[in-house]
């Protein structure tokens, strides 16, 4: 069974351009259908404004869809009660693009990673600390950094903190919204390696949002190409890269800077 089944998903925003102007509708996500299989890496690619991040927000229930359904393990998450929604949010976590603005600068690492446990479990302080330290080790953060604050870390290390926070509730799915776009290539490689290792170890499913096609080719099983709120093409990585069908996909693949000599 598919983990996610997305049917006719829609997110329209009404934007007023003046006080008495008629609102115009921006179709950020326009009637899209796709599914996510358990244990796979599904990437959503496209340029800024194509609706890929809106799709991520809809899956995370940060935004409410204006139409359509999102089935997770057979249940429509747009119709869940608040208790059921809490359970859902434990299973689906997110890591963000910018490791600078997605961590609270006034909290130390220990507190940042412990927060999801405090909100969602009945563990006592000692158990929480143990769990946090285990997960820190898993993502390559040293134990003695427990008391440190985000500004004392490099970009790559901060992204590791973000990954630890997403991982601590042992989710089934992690939505990765441009997780390596803000990082240097060598740090990017470290984080990609970590994501691949963690996926193997915990049998995770990733929905990977990115505009970098080289990264996407490396990490994904399947790819969805979005353009102005629509899905224009979706296929296995090998097929899509070898034989792109839609003009926009061809353009996108053609624009990847290549190292060939």
């Amino acid at each position, binding site marked *: 069974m598919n983990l996610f089944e997305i049917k006719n998903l829609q997110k329209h925003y009404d934007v007023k351009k003046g006080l008495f102007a008629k609102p115009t509708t921006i179709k950020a996500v326009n009637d899209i259908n796709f599914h996510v299989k358990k244990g796979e890496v599904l990437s959503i690619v496209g*340029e800024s404004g194509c609706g890929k991040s809106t799709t991520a927000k809809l899956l995370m229930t940060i935004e409410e869809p204006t139409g359509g359904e999102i089935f997770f393990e057979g249940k429509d998450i747009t119709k869940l009660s608040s208790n059921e929604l809490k359970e859902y949010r434990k299973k689906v976590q997110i890591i963000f693009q910018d490791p600078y603005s997605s961590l609270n600068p006034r909290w130390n690492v220990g507190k940042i990673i412990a927060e999801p446990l405090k909100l969602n479990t009945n563990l006592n302080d000692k158990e929480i600390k143990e769990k946090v330290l285990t997960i820190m080790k898993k993502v390559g953060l040293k134990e003695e950094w427990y008391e440190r604050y985000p500004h004392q870390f490099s*970009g790559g290390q901060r992204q590791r903190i973000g990954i630890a926070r997403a991982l601590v509730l042992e989710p089934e799915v992690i939505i990765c919204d441009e997780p390596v776009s803000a990082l*240097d290539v060598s740090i990017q490689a470290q984080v990609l390696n970590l994501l*691949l290792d963690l996926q193997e170890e915990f049998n995770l499913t990733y929905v990977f949002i990115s505009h970098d096609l080289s990264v996407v080719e490396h990490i994904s099983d399947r790819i969805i190409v979005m353009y102005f709120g629509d899905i224009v093409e979706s296929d296995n990585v090998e097929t899509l890269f070898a034989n792109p069908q839609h003009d926009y996909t061809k353009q996108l693949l053609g624009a990847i800077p290549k*190292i*060939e000599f």
Partner: protein
Amino acid sequence: MLLEVKNLVTCFYADEHVNRAVDNVSFSIPEGKTVCIVGESGSGKSITSLSIMGLIEKPGVVESGEILFEGTDLLKSSQKHMRSVRGAKISMIFQEPMTSLNPSYTVGYQLDEVLKLHQSHLSKKERYEKVIEALKLVGMPYPEEKYNEYPFKLSGGQRQRVMIAMAMTCEPKLLIADEPTTALDVTIQAQVLELMSKLQKEKGTAILFITHDLGVVAGIADEVVVMYRGHVVEKASAKELFSDPRHPYTKALLNSIPTPGKVKRKSRLETVDENIDYLQFPKEIR
């Protein structure tokens, strides 16, 4: 040689601590060619370009070295001379086109300003025509309308086109481009890069291109300078560097990129080892 940088040292002072951001860097730029400086954040590539422009401010100091532009040492030049060089003979474009354009003036006003400063003999009408011509040159749609627009109304790619137009109006000998396409989408990046090489061919401008993206380097560079922790670790023609990288740092950097077709999917990528000081290896200057 159009520009020769010799043994440049730029330091930043913080209390008792001295940070040698650029440490004994030498390279040169031939006329009409593109030289790329690549390196990770903190490698000193941007500080090198700011040193050339004479834009290092306290607590930073250019300690020693020479920057010879058309034979004159810019480090020994007066402020007045530097002002006549900057924008006219050497101009610069930056990564974030939104923050480097003034949000409260129109595109036209900002382009006009460059000509007012550097080509004061032109009449108002001549300047207007030159600005429109510059906007046409960078492929801006509806240049006459865009002249009166404010920067916020333009897309990222269009803003970068305005920046390039501004940098190119005085037909500089050298264009310094500091990560000009990093904030842009790939398809827009491809357009901007194409525009830059088109202008280079037409005007014979030399380009110093600063980037961390080796894919971009491969596309545009004649010569490549690899920087690591303030030092140049490898210098070679683009062809030599990519077909036969010699310095361990360059190799690690190249191997950390997931290249479709070359690196096996889902394999673990090589990384730059943070525990290794790559400066221990001999420099590879070709």
